[in-house]
């Protein structure tokens, strides 16, 4: 009641304007969010519309934003084609192995660089990040040369096998994942691992039983990154794999659905949409974990 009386009094104008400011801030944020959503949803919606059209309708001069004769034939053809399923399988295997390998290297590396003070650890941490700044377009030629030399020396042919990507992608994912996890690990209070060590835990036990559970949001962020990189990587598979049965989704769709100068737009769009589905599903599933701050209550609060 007091506030009401105060509101009517002259100098209390500020209180009213505060809430008005907030209202306008909300309105503006919705305006920009809407613009943002329209801008970013434009390509996937266009892809979705196109994927429901026949080739004839795509090339016909009708309204591109409307489907007159919707058909699922593109989806049926792709999902029953062995080629597409092979690409999908290769992509999935590469991504799963790359994510696993990346985490097995990055988590202990980040822990060591964040917590064990040793000679040159800070320089090493910066060095790890700097390697990430080298663009992959610069790396694929020397890598190609290295694989050729390796084949000469050992007789093991690395080029044109899907599994070679498992060893190539971590050159991109490990530095970045290590870097973001160093940051996350550094934000965990030092007393937490000191308490574990005083309680009798070894470094490994501290890492596995305290750090990994507490740093889960950071680890999940790194996992999402590693998965996205390996799922969407285009240049390396284009350079290192050529046979149809060794290709992954991004290159597979392009090389098999574009024949000469004929673009099979309906199937390309369908393939791209289906290819985008797994990361979307994984994001939706992990987002809750990613956002929830698991460190709450660890120390003072």
């Amino acid at each position, binding site marked *: 009641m007091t506030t009401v009386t105060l509101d009517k009094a002259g100098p209390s104008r500020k209180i009213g304007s505060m809430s008005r400011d907030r209202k306008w801030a909300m309105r503006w944020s919705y305006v920009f969010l809407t613009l943002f959503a329209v801008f970013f949803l434009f390509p996937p919606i266009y892809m979705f519309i196109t994927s429901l059209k026949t080739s004839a309708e795509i090339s016909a001069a009708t309204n591109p934003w409307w489907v007159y004769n919707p058909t699922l034939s593109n989806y049926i053809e792709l999902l029953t084609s062995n080629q597409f399923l092979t690409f999908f399988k290769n992509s999935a295997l590469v991504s799963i192995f790359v994510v696993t390998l990346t985490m097995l290297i990055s988590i202990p590396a980040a822990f060591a660089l964040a917590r064990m003070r040793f000679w040159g650890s800070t320089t090493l941490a910066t060095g790890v990040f700097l390697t990430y700044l080298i663009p992959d377009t610069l790396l694929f030629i020397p890598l190609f040369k290295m694989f050729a030399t390796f084949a000469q020396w050992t007789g093991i042919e690395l080029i044109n096998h899907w599994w070679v990507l498992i060893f190539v992608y971590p050159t991109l994912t490990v530095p970045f994942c290590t870097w973001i996890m160093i940051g996350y690990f550094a934000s965990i209070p030092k*007393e*937490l691992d000191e308490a574990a060590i*005083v*309680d009798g835990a070894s470094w490994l036990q501290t890492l596995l039983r*305290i750090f990994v559970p*507490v740093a889960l949001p950071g680890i999940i962020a790194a996992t999402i990154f590693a998965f996205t990189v390996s799922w969407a990587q285009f240049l390396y598979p284009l350079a290192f794999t050529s046979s149809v049965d060794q290709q992954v989704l991004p290159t597979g769709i392009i090389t098999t659905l574009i024949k000469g100068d004929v673009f099979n737009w309906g199937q390309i769009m369908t393939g791209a949409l289906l290819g985008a589905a797994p990361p979307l599903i994984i994001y939706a599933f992990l987002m809750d974990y990613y956002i929830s701050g698991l*460190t709450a209550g*660890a*120390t*003072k609060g």
Partner: protein
Amino acid sequence: MAEVTLRKVVKRYDDVEAVRGIDLDIPDHEFVVLVGPSGCGKSTTLRMIAGLEDISDGEIMIGGDVVNDVPPKDRDIAMVFQNYALYPHMTVAENMSFGLRLKHYPKAEIKQRITEAARMLDITDLIDRKPKQLSGGQRQRVAMGRAIVRNPKVFLFDEPLSNLDAKLRVQMRIEIKKVHQKVRTTTVYVTHDQVEAMTLADRVVVMNHGRIEQIGPPNELYHRPATKFVAGFIGSPAMNFIPCQLEESGGLLQVRVSDAAAFPVPAERVARYRAIPRDTKLLLGLRPEHLVDAQSNQSAAFQPFDATPDVIEPMGMETFVYFPLAGAQLCGRINPGIDAQAGAPLRLAVDLNHMHLLNEATGAVL
């Protein structure tokens, strides 16, 4: 349980010496408090005992064994941190049992120890909660429980009450004392709060600039400080220091604080102070409770004088008065029944039987 011994322990960070060669013997069962201002090296000392910091020089022994190169996990110590450092993803019971589970204790024994500790700390109802569902005081109890269940040789406390509000701090202080009376584990406790040090300790170690200023039971430090730092640090409000000179007139030894004011040295101290060279710059140290109102202290032990207080602080059971004298700002403690007014003259009395005389240059109590 074990005794802890420090021999000439030094900690150097690059070219800064945080701890400058300290010697300390803590017998079994003793509760020792390291106290001092921030940056005095008390926390570093504790962390060296825990093994969380390397020792640059000297020796630390726990239970007679040199532990300089023993990792923390093998020192059989338990530590309570200022910010609790509870494992956020574990329940209270899991937090408390973590150390025991790592050492593969039988389940029945773990359970029994947790139940016992939880009962001692009054947290039985919270055993299945996560740390974030607990209040600050409850979290600190759990942190203590985690230390107790391990039944270690030594308890280490690193400012455990600093994050709690004043009321809770007093309550937890009593709690810690009770726990120590029950388990009798050798305890090293670090705090910057001299009240905590006085109330908890069997012996207090006052540290300053990486060195030990004085070691002793709380009352000894209070009544017989060895240095100006200890005299000023222990006690609240702090001891007053007044620049003064010794003079002898007519065979009577006097402490002169200003041209107008001089007090006779009590008879039993004359012999002790007579040897001091007259040109030594001295400080007269007087605790507030020895600067009292003249009205209620009229015995021969008290020397009356006049002052004009500029601030009056009524505390209920006592009243503090702040007044200038001989260029120093002093604090006295008067009977709350006296009607003292800021700016109004007040007749005060000084009890010189409890005076301290300090060498201004060296800080030593003479």
